[in-house]
C-alpha cells in the first residue's frame, strides 16, 4: 500500500510535467519564470484536442506566515490566498462536459464535470474546517463560481486517493479537503477571471486565442488552476511555488459546420498568433504527429523541422514543435496559422487501457443501485486502482450490499475506507483499493434508499433530480511503451532484453460521469401549497383551542422552605403525615 502511494506520487510528478521539458529552472537573476505552451492533438475521432498550459514558478516562501508583498508575474490574488489560509497545495478545475475516454483517449489533466476543488493545508492550520469554509468563499469570489455551495455535506477527506503532487512529505489526510460541485455550469464569467491571472492577460502570447465565443462552441471545455511547491533544482535544496494554469478544449468535427475536414488556428479560435508573450521564457506549440509519420492521416502546414519526443501517459509520442520566441516561426506574413487537413476517415472507438462508467439502476422512487464499471483492457497485466466514491447523504447506502465482481468472481478489495454519512452533515465516503484482472470488467454495486427530504431542503427545481458527483479512479496503468513486445522493431539490442522498463506504469486518474437521481418529490403545485397552508392554519388554530379547552388551571402552592422539606422527609420516614 505504502509503496503504491509512493510510486503513484513519483509517477504523477513525472507525468504531469511532460511535455514541458524544461523542468529545471533557468538560473537567472530574476527568480520568477513564466512558460506557456499549447499542445494540439488531432484525435482519433476526427475531433481536435487543444490543451493550453501556462506555468509560473516563483522562488519565494509563502509558508509560516511569511509576508510577501511584492508581486511580479505571480498573481497577487492567489498569493494572498496562499499565505492567508496557509495553503500548501491547491487544485481547482471547472469543466463543462464529460471527457469521452472511449473516443479521445486520456486527457493530459483529467477533471470531472462541474467544479472540483482539493486543497492540502499546512500543518500549522489548527481549525481546518473553518479555514476551508473561508477559503471556498474567497475562491468563489476570485473565480466567479458557486464554490460557496461547498459545505460539510459535500466535503470529503479522502484517505488515499488524493496525495500531494508537490514536494513535502506530510500525508496526514486531516489537512486535506476535497469537494466537487457536479451542477456547476462553467461559462465566460469563469473564463475572464482565469485569464486575468496570466501575466500577459489575453493581450499577447497564446492567450490571445482564448476567445470565449469559440471556446464555448466545443464538445468539452475544462480550465484549471494548480498551485504547489516544487523543487528549485535537481538537488531540491530549496523550494519554489508553481502556478500551473491549464485549459483543455475539444472541438467537434461535426458541429463545426464545415464540409471540408480541415482545422486551423483561425477556425478553432478565430485568431492567429503573431507573437509570444514577452514575459514568457518559453512559448511553444506542440502538435502530436505520432500517428502521422508520413502524413498519411493529416497534412500539417506550415511544416516545421523541429521534432520532440516525450513519454506522455505511458506512450511515446512525437510532436512537431513551433517555437513562438523565434521570429522564423511566423514566416513572412508575420502571423502563424497552423492548419491540419484530414486525409483519412474517422476511426473506430478506442480501447483505452482503463476506463470507467457509472449508472443508477432500478425503477421507482424507493430504492436503487449504483453500478460502477471499471474496464481493464490490458491483454495480460492486472493493475491496482483506487476507487473513491462520494455519495450525498440523501442516498442512504446499504453498505452490506456492496459487491465487487470481476470475471464472475468476487474481487476482494485489499483496502477499504468507508465513512458513513450523517444526515444533513456529511456524505458517504467509500475508498477501495482493487486489483483489476487483465482484460476484464470489474463491477462495483451498492444499493441505496432514497431519503425523503424536508420540504425546505428541495432545490427550486426538484423534478430535475439531484446530482451525485463523479467517482474518482486513480490508478497505476501499465505503459504502452512497456507493452511493446515486438522485438523485430529496430532498436539497440542492449535495450530489448528485459521487457520491463523504468517507466513501466504511469499514473492516471479517471472520472466517471456524475449521476442524476430523482428523489421522491412532493407535488409543489398550487393544491400542495393550499394543503400545506390549510394544514398549518388548522393545526395552529386547533392546537391552541384544544390546549385551552383541555388544560386544567390550578393555583400553584408557594414553594415550601428547605427546613419544611427536610421535616417532611423525616416525617414520611416515620410514617407521620407531612406538614
Amino acid at each position, binding site marked *: 500500500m505504502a509503496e503504491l502511494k509512493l510510486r503513484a506520487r513519483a509517477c504523477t510528478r513525472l507525468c504531469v510535467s511532460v511535455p514541458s521539458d524544461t523542468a529545471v529552472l533557468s538560473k537567472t537573476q530574476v527568480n520568477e519564470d513564466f512558460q506557456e505552451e499549447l499542445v494540439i492533438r488531432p484525435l482519433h475521432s476526427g475531433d481536435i484536442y487543444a490543451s493550453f498550459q501556462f506555468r509560473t514558478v516563483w522562488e519565494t516562501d509563502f509558508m509560516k506566515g511569511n509576508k510577501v508583498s511584492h508581486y511580479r508575474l505571480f498573481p497577487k490574488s492567489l498569493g494572498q490566498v496562499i499565505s492567508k489560509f496557509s495553503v500548501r497545495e491547491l487544485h481547482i478545475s471547472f469543466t463543462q*462536459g464529460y471527457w469521452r475516454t472511449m473516443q479521445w483517449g486520456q486527457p493530459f489533466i483529467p477533471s470531472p464535470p462541474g467544479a472540483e476543488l482539493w486543497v492540502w493545508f499546512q500543518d500549522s492550520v489548527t481549525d481546518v474546517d473553518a479555514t476551508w469554509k473561508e477559503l471556498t468563499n474567497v475562491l468563489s469570489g476570485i473565480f466567479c463560481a458557486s464554490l460557496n455551495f461547498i459545505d460539510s455535506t459535500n466535503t470529503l477527506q479522502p484517505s488515499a486517493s488524493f496525495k500531494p503532487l508537490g514536494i513535502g512529505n506530510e500525508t496526514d489526510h486531516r489537512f486535506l479537503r476535497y469537494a466537487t460541485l457536479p451542477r456547476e455550469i462553467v461559462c465566460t464569467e469563469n473564463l475572464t477571471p482565469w485569464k486575468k491571472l496570466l501575466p500577459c492577460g489575453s493581450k499577447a502570447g497564446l492567450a490571445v486565442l482564448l476567445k470565449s465565443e469559440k471556446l464555448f462552441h*466545443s464538445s468539452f*471545455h475544462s480550465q484549471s488552476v494548480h498551485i504547489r511547491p516544487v523543487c528549485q533544482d535537481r538537488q531540491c535544496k530549496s523550494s519554489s511555488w508553481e502556478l500551473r494554469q491549464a485549459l483543455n478544449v475539444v472541438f467537434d468535427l461535426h458541429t463545426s459546420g464545415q464540409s471540408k475536414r480541415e482545422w486551423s488556428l483561425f477556425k478553432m479560435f478565430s485568431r492567429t498568433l503573431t507573437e509570444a508573450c514577452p514575459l514568457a521564457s518559453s512559448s511553444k506549440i506542440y502538435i502530436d504527429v505520432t500517428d502521422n509519420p508520413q502524413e498519411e492521416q493529416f497534412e500539417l502546414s506550415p511544416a516545421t523541422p523541429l521534432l520532440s519526443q516525450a513519454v506522455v501517459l505511458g506512450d511515446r509520442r512525437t510532436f512537431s514543435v513551433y517555437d513562438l520566441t523565434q521570429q522564423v516561426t511566423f514566416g513572412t506574413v508575420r502571423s502563424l496559422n497552423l492548419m491540419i487537413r484530414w486525409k483519412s476517415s474517422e476511426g473506430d472507438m478506442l480501447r483505452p487501457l482503463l476506463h470507467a462508467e457509472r449508472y443508477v439502476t*432500478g*425503477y421507482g422512487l424507493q430504492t436503487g443501485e449504483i453500478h460502477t464499471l471499471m474496464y481493464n483492457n490490458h491483454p495480460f497485466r492486472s493493475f491496482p486502482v483506487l476507487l473513491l466514491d462520494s455519495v450525498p447523504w440523501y442516498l442512504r447506502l446499504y453498505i452490506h450490499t456492496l459487491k465487487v465482481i470481476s470475471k464472475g468472481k468476487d474481487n476482494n478489495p485489499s483496502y477499504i475506507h468507508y465513512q458513513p454519512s450523517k444526515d444533513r452533515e456529511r456524505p458517504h465516503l467509500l475508498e477501495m483499493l482493487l486489483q483489476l484482472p487483465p482484460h476484464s470488467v470489474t463491477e462495483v454495486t451498492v444499493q441505496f434508499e432514497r431519503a425523503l427530504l424536508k420540504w425546505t431542503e428541495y432545490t427550486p427545481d426538484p423534478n430535475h433530480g439531484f446530482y451525485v458527483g463523479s467517482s474518482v479512479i486513480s490508478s497505476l496503468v501499465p505503459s504502452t511503451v512497456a507493452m511493446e513486445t515486438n522485438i523485430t522493431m529496430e532498436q539497440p539490442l542492449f535495450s530489448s532484453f528485459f521487457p520491463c522498463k523504468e517507466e513501466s506504469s504511469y499514473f492516471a486518474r479517471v472520472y466517471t460521469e456524475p449521476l*442524476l*437521481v*430523482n428523489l421522491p418529490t412532493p407535488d409543489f403545485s398550487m393544491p400542495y401549497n393550499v394543503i400545506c397552508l390549510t394544514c398549518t392554519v388548522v393545526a395552529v388554530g386547533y392546537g391552541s383551542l384544544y390546549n385551552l379547552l383541555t388544560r386544567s388551571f390550578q393555583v400553584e402552592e408557594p414553594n415550601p422552605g428547605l427546613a419544611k422539606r427536610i421535616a417532611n422527609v423525616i416525617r414520611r420516614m416515620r410514617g407521620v403525615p407531612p406538614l
Partner: protein
Amino acid sequence: MGLLSDPNRRQALINLLTRLNAPICGMPVDWLVKTMQARGLEVFTQSFSRTLPFPDENTERYVVKGTNVYGILRAPRAPRTEALVLSAPCTPGDNNNQAVGLLLGLAHYFRNQVYWAKDIIFLVNEHDLIGMQAWLEGYHHTNVTGMDWSPLQGRGGSIQAALSLELSSDVVTSLDIVLEGLNGQLPNLDLANLFYAFCQKIGVLCTIQGKLQRSDWDSASGYNHAVQTMMLMVMKQASGRPWGDHGLFLRYHIEAATVKGVNSFRHYKTDATTIGRLLEGMYRKLNNLLERLHQSYFFYLLPSLSHFVSIGYYMPAFGLLAVILLLRALDLWVQLSAQPSRTEDGVAGTEQSNPGVLSVLTPLVISHLTGAALYMLPVRFQEVAVEHFPVSETEAVVLTAIAVYTAGLALPHNTHRYPDMGWRVLKLVALLYLAVLLGCTAVINFSLGFILALTLVPAAAYVTPHVPKALSAFFLVALSPACTLLFSVFFFQELQEMPVSFQDGWLLYLSVIAQGMLDHYLYGSLVFPLVALLVYPCWLLFWNILFWK
C-alpha cells in the same frame, strides 16, 4: 427550424428513404451500425433472446432472438446526465422502414447542431415490444420478466422523455398519438399537448385513437364523437397493455408516446420532411426542459386532443359506485349487530348468532385457491393438454383457462353451520373486499377499476340467497369478469367501427385472453394476475352467496 430546408439535405433524406424501400428490416445490424457511425454517433448493440411461455399466434413468435442497435448523440459540453430517446421498431418485413429512414435522417441532422443539452439516443429495436423491453431492462439493469439480454455498453444518464416512431406506409396523411402504456399508465399530459401544439403549428392532421377532432362540441353528433373517442381510450387503458413501444418506458418514469403515421385521409398528404420538422420541434422543446415533465396531469382521459377530463371530474363517478358497496356493507353490519339482541334469552341462540369472521374462512380460501389455479394451471399444463387433445399450445392455454374458470363455478364451497347468519357475514366480508379491491384498482388504472365496478357492483349489491336462483345465476354469470371481457371485445370493435360477427368475436376473445397472459409474462402487465388472483375469487364469493343453502 432549418431542418431540410436545404435542398441537398432533403435530397439525401429522400435517397435514404428510397433505399430503405428495399426490404432491409429483419434488422440489417451491420448496415445500421455503419450508417449510424457515419453520422457521427456512438453506436452500440444489444442482443437478447426470449422464449415465450407459449407461442404467440398473432405474431407467430415462440423463441425470439434479436439485436437492438442504438446510437448516442453526445450533446456538446453536457455531462451525460440526461438523455432523450427516439426509437423506431424494425420488424421483419418492411413495415417500418420509413420510420427507420427518418430516424437516421434526423440523427444526421441533429448531429450537426450545437444546441443540444441532453444526449439523444437513436434506438432501432427489433421485435418491437420484446426488443424494447430488453433494451429498457438493460439500460436500467433490472430483470422483471426473466429475459436474457447482453449488458449495454453505452448510456446517457437518466432518460427524460422518449418518442417511438411508427410509419406504416410511404404515404402518411395524418399522425396519430398513442398514449396508453403498460398497466394503464399514461405519460404527462404536456407531452400530448406538445404534440398537438406542433401539429397545429406545422399544419399536420393529428388524431387520437384514430379519430379527428371535431369543432362542433355542442351538437349531439359532436358530443357522441367525443364520447366514442374517450370510450376507446377507456377500453385501451383498461386492457393494461402497452399500445405502442412507448408503453414500457412509463414504468421507469420516462414520459413517452408513440407517434404513428396513418394513411387514411386520402386527399391530405404529409411528406417525411414535415414529420421530420415536427419531430425536430418536439425534440428541441424537450431538450430545453429544465425538469422532467411534471407540471401537467398524469391522470386524465382525452375526448379529443385539445380537451381532457381530469381526475377531479371522473373520480366522483367511481366514488358514487363504490359508495353503494359501503352502504350495503353498513346495512349488513347493522343487521348483524342488531340480531343478537333478539335471541338474547337462549344459550344456543347466542352461539348460533355469533358465526364470527372465521366461519367465512373456508369459502374465502377455496375461492382463492380456484383463483390461484386459474393463474397457474393454464401455462403449467399446456404440455399435458397438447398431448391428450388435438389442440395447439396457445389454444390449450386459453381453453384450460376457460375450463378452470368454469369449473370454479361448480365448486361446493359454502359452509352450512349458520344458515341464516353465515351468508350475511360472508357478504359483508365480500363487499368490503370488493370495495377495497376496486378502490385500489381505480387509483392505479381508473378505466379498469371503473369497468369492473360497473359490472360487479350491481351484482354485489343485489345478490342474496333469497332471490330467484336461475335468473340471478344468469345475471351473475353475465356480469362476471370473463363475460365482461367478452362484451368489451365486441364493444371495442364497435367503437373502432369494425363490427365483427359472433364467430369472429369469439376467436378474437380467445386471442385477447392469450394476449393478456402473454402481456403478463413478457412485460409484467398486472391485469391477468389481478383478475385471476383477486377479482375472480371475489366474484366467486358472491356466486357462493347466491347458492347458500
